Every structure is written in C-alpha cells, then in structure tokens.
C-alpha cells in the first residue's frame, strides 16, 4: 500500500472524529457556555447585555423571597413524605385493582403544568360556596402554595418511595418476621430502614419546590408571597431590569439545590450501607379490606386534587363564558396554540434525536466515542438540576449579541426547549438503549450491513416505541412550558403558556380556562396521532419483532 492510499484510508476515521468533536462543541455551546456565563455575571458584570439601569443591587437580594423559598420548600418536603411512602408501598408491595389507575394518575399529575393546576384550584375556590370561607383564606396564602407544591411533587416522591420499598427486599422482611415478634417493632425497624429513602424524597421535593415557577408566578405572585424563581424572572422581565441580581439569586437557587442533592447523596450512601447484598424482589401481596379502602381513598384523593378537580373546574369555567365571535377562543389564542404545537413538535424531535445519538455513541465499542458519549450524558443530565427560569436567563445573556444574536428569535426558543428537555429524553431512553445488546449491531456490521440498513433493520424496529413515547413526553411538556417561554419568546408571538398566564394575570379566567381546554385537547390529539402514526409508518412489516422474540426465547 502506498503512502497516499494509507493516508486516504484514514480519512473516514478522521471525518468521524471531527463530526464527534463538532457535536461535542455544539452541546458545549448550547449547555455549558450559557450557564457558566450567566452564573459568572456577579463576578464579571460586563458580561451583561446592559448594566443595571440604576443602583438596584445595593438594595439587597430579596431576603424575604429567599426565606419564603427555603421555608415553603421544607414544608413541601415534609408533607410529601407520608402520601409518597404510602403510594410507593401500594404500587410496589400490594396487588390490587387500582394499581394501574394510580400509576396513570401520577403520570397525569407529573405532566400537568403547575400553573394550570393552580388556575383550576383558583376557579374552584372562587365558587360562591367557598369564596369567603376558611378554605379560600387558607388557599390564598402559604398553605395553598404548599398544598399545590406537594401535589406536584407526589409523582417524583412516589417513584423514590417505590425504589425504597423495592430495595428493602423480601429477605429483610422475612428476617424481621422471624426475629422480631411484635408488629409495631417490625414497623419501627422498617421505618428505620426506610429513613434514608425518606430523606432522599424530602430533598428531591425540596429542590423541585424551590425551583417551581408555575405556582410562584401565579398563586405566589397573586398573594404577594415572593419566591426566588419568580423574583429572578421579575429581575429579567419587569422594570427595572437587573441581570446581576437575577444571576446572584440564581446562584442561591443552585446552591440550595446542591446542598439538598449533597444531602441526598449522603443519605443514599447510608442506605447502601444499611441494605447491602443481593435482595430478592419482594412479592406483591393482596390487600386486606382496610388497606384496600385506604388505597382507594388515597388514589381518589390524588386524582381529585391533582387532575380531576382542577380539570373539571377549568372545563366548567371554560364552557360558562361567552364565545368570541362564534369561536371558542380568540385569534391570538389560536395563534399561541399553533405556535406551541410547532415549537413542541420540532423541539421534541430534536431532543429525541440528540438523545438517541448520545446513547447510541455510548453503545459503540470505540473507547473515544464511548467516553465522549458518557461525558455528554453527564453534562446534559447535570442540566436537569437547573430550573427553567435560570436556563432562560442564561440563554438571554449568552445569545444576545455579537455572533450569537439569537435573542428574540424563534430559533433561540427552539434551542432552549431542546436543551432543557434533552435530559428528560435521555433518562427516558436510557433503559431501552441499555437493553440493546452491543453485539447485535456489531454482528450486522460484520455481515456487511451499512449504517442505514442497520438503523432500518435493527435499531428502529426495536426502539421505535420508546422513541415515540419519549417524543410524546417531551412534546407535552414543551407544549405547556412556562419559564423559558416567558423569558425568551419572540416579541409579539407569545406561545400558549405565556398567553395563558397573561389571561390569568388580567383576570380573564373564563378565557384562560377555554384556551387551556382547547390547548389540552389539541395537545392530546397530536400526541395520540404521533404515537399511532410513527410506529405504523416506521414499524416492522414482516414480523421482525416476532423473530427477535423467538431468538431471545431460544437464547440466541
């Protein structure tokens, strides 16, 4: 082989490496650079697009908002534990008819935007029966905010609790039955074993509650109870604008999250030390009548508080008002729905595609590619700990001048939606990609199948359903996304969440409810269409799945 031909043979490898580096650089520009630049603002004020218009910073950093945030997060952290533990127990350890319904309810609560949850409850509390009651006074105060934050946190905490009940294992329970005679002592032992997971649930809930923007921007703003996430937004989007103050408050939120997550990690280690060794999966037992009644009561309560009551309230309110020129919603709201549909569709496709590329890179045998993929995975996952309002602020500062003057364009909003939802797609697709045997693709390559043939013949048929579900999840959350939209939307073209919030702020509750309802129906229709159409078009036609299952069954 001549020197020239040897050089030529290296070109494909070189191109692959360059593509990888380019991809990594793109991820760094989209994820790392904006955050670093924003959080460095208090140290280097010249990084701001405009210096503070006057001396706002000397008036402090909203200590009231900081104290409110810490206090309410701790309260929500404590309150979420009992129902979370019970839900986890019912899902992991008990066999009963409503288990599926409870899971679906938790998913619905998880996907329901907190500002819509708040709006629904506001409509309910405004009913004549409740308007001047004790309930109304409680709702329009700290108790109402903590209640809403607790409801929103139930899905995550139930998931953590479920893991805890699973990790406890059958062996420990069997041992406690044998060696500990009294029931209350057995329960005390279990409670002590569950302590690390309880701590972990509290910490996760505290972080989620401190970062929530929907409740802070609606009920929090209305009852004049400032919370840091909303004060950050105020510093960016109301007069006088102060970027440095927003950055300092963001650092406070990040530090709060790091403290809580550090505590969670310590508790996790403690749990690992307490419950070591291989555990047998616990068997789900059938419920006794009292437990069954409790299970249904809890399921009903979660459904009513998190989904049923606010949805019914929105529906009733939406139907009660007059239509606008014969249409359910006005032209501006239709436009907002249409914009959110397009933003959601493109961002979801981009997030799922990027997630697939990163997770696919992890599967490759080449060391460099795998390391790079792991690094990207870690970086993008770290992004998950950053609330939307901080990410929005970071994007505003980073893409507001010089070569990257994207602020005020739809492109920046698309970029922000994709960046903020990539971690969700990664987490969702992690398990399906991990379950793919690396040898599958390697064998196909050895047999001469090109990348496109491998994609069409092996990867897509096996992954099309998880990919579709990941797309649907990202689509739904982007469709109703609030903090990023509020900070970054192009002037004059507000997406749905911004439109809904502005209708709420101007006290047009009927119009807000109608637009929310139409938005939800539209979102659900497009999601269902996507979930049916994509697997239908891209799915296997000749029984590949069946063959694959047969192969697996044969141990091949």
């Amino acid at each position: 082989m001549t020197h020239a031909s040897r050089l030529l043979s290296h070109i494909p490898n070189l191109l692959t490496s360059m593509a990888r580096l380019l991809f990594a650089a793109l991820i760094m520009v989209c994820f790392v650079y904006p955050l670093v630049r924003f959080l460095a603002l208090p140290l280097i004020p010249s990084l701001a697009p405009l210096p503070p218009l006057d001396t706002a910073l000397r008036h402090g950093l909203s200590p009231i908002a900081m104290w409110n945030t810490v206090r309410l997060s701790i309260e929500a952290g404590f309150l979420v534990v009992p129902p979370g533990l019970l839900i986890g127990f019912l899902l992991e350890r008990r066999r009963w008819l409503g288990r599926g319904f409870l899971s679906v309810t938790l998913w619905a609560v998880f996907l329901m935007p907190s500002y819509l949850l708040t709006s629904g409850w506001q409509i309910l509390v405004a009913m004549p029966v409740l308007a001047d009651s004790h309930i109304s006074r409680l709702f329009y105060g700290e108790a109402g905010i903590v209640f809403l934050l607790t409801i929103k946190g139930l899905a995550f905490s139930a998931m953590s609790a479920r893991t805890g009940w699973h990790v406890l294992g059958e062996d420990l329970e069997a041992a406690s039955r044998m060696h500990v005679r009294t029931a209350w002592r057995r329960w005390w032992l279990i409670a002590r074993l569950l302590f690390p997971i309880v701590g972990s649930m509290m910490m996760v809930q505290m972080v989620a509650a401190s970062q929530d923007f929907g409740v802070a921007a609606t009920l929090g703003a209305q009852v004049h109870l400032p919370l840091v996430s909303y004060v950050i937004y105020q510093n960016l989007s109301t007069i006088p604008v102060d970027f440095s103050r927003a950055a300092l408050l963001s650092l406070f939120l990040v530090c709060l999250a790091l403290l809580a997550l550090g505590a969670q990690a310590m508790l996790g280690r403690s749990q690992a030390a307490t419950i070591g060794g291989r555990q047998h999966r616990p068997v789900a037992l059938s419920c006794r009548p009292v437990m069954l009644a409790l299970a249904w009561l809890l399921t009903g309560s979660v459904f009513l508080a998190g989904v049923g009551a606010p949805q019914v309230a929105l529906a009733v309110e939406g139907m009660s008002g007059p239509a606008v020129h014969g249409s359910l919603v006005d032209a501006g709201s239709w436009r907002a729905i249409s914009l959110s549909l397009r933003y959601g569709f493109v961002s979801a496709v981009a997030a799922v595609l990027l997630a697939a590329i990163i997770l696919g890179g992890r599967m490759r045998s080449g060391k460099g590619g795998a390391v790079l993929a792991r690094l990207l995975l870690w970086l993008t996952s770290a992004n998950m700990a950053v609330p939307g309002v901080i990410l929005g602020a970071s994007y505003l500062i980073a893409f507001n001048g010089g070569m990257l003057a994207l602020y005020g364009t739809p492109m920046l909003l698309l970029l922000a939606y994709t960046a903020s939802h990539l971690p969700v797609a990664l987490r969702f697709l992690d398990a399906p990609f991990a379950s793919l045997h690396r040898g599958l693709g390697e064998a196909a390559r050895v047999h001469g199948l090109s990348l496109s043939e491998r994609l069409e013949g092996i990867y897509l048929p096996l992954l099309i359903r998880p990919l579709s579900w990941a797309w649907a999840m990202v689509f739904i959350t982007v469709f109703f996304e609030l903090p990023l939209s509020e900070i970054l939307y192009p002037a004059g073209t507000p997406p749905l969440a911004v439109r809904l919030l502005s209708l709420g702020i101007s006290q047009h509750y009927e119009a807000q409810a109608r637009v929310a309802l139409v938005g939800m129906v539209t979102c659900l229709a497009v999601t269902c269409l996507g979930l049916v159409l994509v697997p239908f078009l891209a799915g296997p036609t000749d029984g590949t799945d069946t063959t694959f299952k047969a192969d697996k069954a044969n141990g091949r």
Partner: protein
Amino acid sequence: MMTLLRTVRPNNRQRSARMRLAATLLFAASVGCVVSLEDHQIPDMVVYSSVGTAPAVISAYTRETGRRASLVTMSTGALLARISAEAHHPRWDVVWFEGDDGAVAMDRAGLFARGTVPDLDWTPLGRTLLPADRSYEPTGFTLAGVFLERADKAHTVQNWTQAFNTKRIGMADPALSGPAYQLLAGMLSINGGWPAGQSALLRMAANGMLVAPSNAAVLTSLLTGRIDSAITQSSAGIALSRTDKRFLVALPDPAFILPGVASVAADQPASRRHTASDFLRFIMRPDIQILRMHDTDADRLFWPVTNSPAQPDLPDPDGMTLMHLSPLIWGGRQAEVIDWFQRMIVR
C-alpha cells in the same frame, strides 16, 4: 441472532420504503415548522408599543407610504424590560409608550438615538416635556391617576387626602405597570417627596389597599366589587365611566402628567433610523392626531402637546392643576422606590 440478521437483509424493500417515507415526513414537518416560525418578510420598520391607538396609526402609515411596518404590542413594563434585554442588538426601530421616566432611563443606557425629534408647533407644556438631547418625542399626555369610584359610593374619594385614608381602594403595581410608577412618584411627591412620602403609602397599605398587576386588573376588581374606588390612568378611568354609568371619575388636584413618548433605536443602521424618524413626524401630524382621537381604544383620550389639533372629548387642561414630575429625578430613583413598594406595600 442469525435469524434476525436474515430478516433485515436489504431485500426487505417495503419496510425500508416505509421507514424512509416516515423519516422524510418527519424531516419535512420539522423543517416546515421551523420555516413557518420564522418571519421571512423583513419589515421596513418594527414598532414596539404599549399605546392602544398604535395599530390605527401603523395602518395609516402603511397605507400612505407603502412601507411594511410591523407592530408588537405589550404593556409598558414588559416593553421597557424587553428593550433593555435586547440592549444594543435591538429588534425594534421605534418604541412608543407612556412615561418619560422610563424614556430617560433608556436614553441614559444609550439605547435611544439622539436628535431625532422634529421641530413642531409645541404647546408651552409640550416644550417643557421635550428632553434637551431630543432623544424622545412627547406624543401627548394623559394623567397618571384619576379617582374612579362606584356611583353608589360616590364622593368618598374626591381628593388626595380622602384617597390616602379610604378603605377598599386599588391601584396598579408599579413594578409591572409603567404608568403606575408615575402615579406612585406623584403620590410620594405631594407627601414630602422621597422618603418622607412613604408614610402616606403605608397608611393606604394599612387600610388594605389592593395592588393589582395592571390598570385593567384594577378596573376588573372594581367591576367585580372587590374594591369601591380606584386610582387609575385617566384614559382607562374616563373610558370606563363613559361606557358604564355605574362609575364616576374625579380629576385630582394636583394631577400628575403622564407623557406618551416615542423614540428611535440608536443601534439600527442609518437608513432604518431615517425611516423611524419619519414615523415620529407622522405620529404628530394633525390629521394623524385626529385619527388617534377617533380610535375606539381608551388611549384616544389624550391631551395633545401641539397647538393643533385640540382634544374635543376631554376637559381643557388649562382648568386643571397639572404637575410634571422630573423624569431625571424620579427616573433615577425608580429601582429604589419600586423595591421599597414591593417590600413594604405589596408584601
């Protein structure tokens, strides 16, 4: 595994074709969405405005000049925040809003082009509203606050003393509503200035004053009976009292001037700045001012700052005690005053 590999041989054309079709459709839909999101027709001029009569003026301008002008409407607070955030990379050519304190702050930040205001037949008051560097043009004025109350509770709020001591009164939040800051500054000013005037506001807060996000929200609270009286911008208050006889307006003494202002972006190319300056002249043409006065929006109820035309629909300003707060002084205190208001009054 071999069985699987046999099934994925390239001869399975039907599946490949369907997958490629799906991929093509997905790609086309994504590209279509991105393309439809971007506004491809670059307008000759972009106007950010919080003034309700702006759409009619823009339509007239486009009709007359043939230039494509794009209007983005938002509240004054959001507008000022947006142009601050866009900073030296503006996506606007002209801003038109209410409150010269905000205009002074933007001018100090170097966002407004200077010397763009045309020479017009200004009234004496109009002349006092003109900035020395001609960085913004006064387009008329309204009053930052008038007393609006339910007719069945009439005459409980007729002057500032009554307003400071009454219960169930509301005003807009100056952090969110631009005009409300001028009102707050005026209220502080007649009570001894800053910080001496704080006590009057604290008295109002102790009496349970409602602070709503906008003038519109204050009016909604009045309509729903949550409050009995309100201090709102004159245009909003007078418009409501004329359409709904259940409400009465009283003009305060003194009344705080809230100038409408328009300006040109400093960081746009010269040709666009030139077009924008033409538009400033267009807004102030007598026929266009008459067009503004005949609009359906409440902002039609403004007092002109040029000698022609006269506003037929409002009382003569010469019969009122008007007070113009220095934007240089009160604009500079804005953050401090709003911060205090948020901590001590809104809470």
